[in-house]
């Protein structure tokens, strides 16, 4: 059974000499294919200059839009940040002002008490 299989394989894979004129036919075919015009490609539209310009324009527009969006976002964030900074300073100024008012009242009271008691 094993010998049969080997014999069959050898028979199938035996070297076969090419038929007469094979080399000429092959070279003629290669030459003919080289000289013939290329087959129209399905992706030909991609290669047209108009399409290339359109693609480049589209890519540039997208990049510009992203850039503008980023710039506007940064600008808005800066405006909000500066406004927040102004508000913090204003809030602390108001707080200080009222602490100062409290201190002034305390000072007035303590000075009026010491005026009433000059010996103290």
């Amino acid at each position, binding site marked *: 059974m094993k010998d049969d299989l080997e014999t069959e394989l050898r028979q199938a894979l035996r070297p076969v000499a090419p038929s007469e004129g094979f080399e000429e036919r092959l070279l003629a075919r290669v030459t003919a294919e080289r000289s013939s015009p290329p087959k129209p490609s399905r992706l030909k539209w991609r290669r047209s200059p108009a399409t290339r310009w359109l693609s480049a324009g589209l890519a540039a527009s997208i990049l510009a839009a992203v850039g503008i969006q980023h710039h506007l976002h940064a600008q808005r*964030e*800066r405006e*909000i*940040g*500066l406004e*927040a*900074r102004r*508000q*913090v*300073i*204003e*809030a*602390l*100024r*108001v*707080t*200080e*002002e*009222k*602490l*100062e*008012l*409290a*201190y002034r*009242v*305390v*000072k*007035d*009271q*303590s000075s009026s008490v010491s005026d009433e008691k000059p010996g103290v």
Partner: protein
Amino acid sequence: MIRRFMPVIVCVLLAPSLTFAAPNPRLLLPEFGALADKASESVTITLDPSMLAMAGRFLDSNDPQDAATQEVIKGLQGIYVRSYTFDQDYFYKQSDIDAVRKQLSAPGWNRLMETRSRKTHANVEIYIMTEGNKAIGLALIASEPREFTIVNIIGSIDLQKLHKLEGQFGVPKLDLDATKAPALNKQK
């Protein structure tokens, strides 16, 4: 079976968190819309944590005033200010302030000081909320005949840092040394 007892289970699980809920230093400040319309000047500032963080990014640490401000706001989670100035005396109602003052009677708040001037009729109250030894909230109510201001600061406030700011925003420098102004250490 479990579905029937679900409300009970939820209540049991939530009970400890409700009982030991941390005191909230954030005051519910009214809109004061009508007062703002009548006021000759008004300041409304609402700075939540995100706005404070944003402000922090725009403070220049090389500038002494900005650096001091940065230090003060470092541990803060919010600053809320409502301040109104009027052209006539007592244009605002006392009840406007009482609504806020009422919130300061909640547990956790302690009155740090109260000053009343007979001469100028200025009244300033400072309340502080503490957690352990740390101040986590500050409220200030200042009322004068033509002005009233409410300040609510949330977060770990270092009064020493606030003290450092004195004189930096055009306000005269205060002399808040404990020996010279013992009233500031008064407790409720």
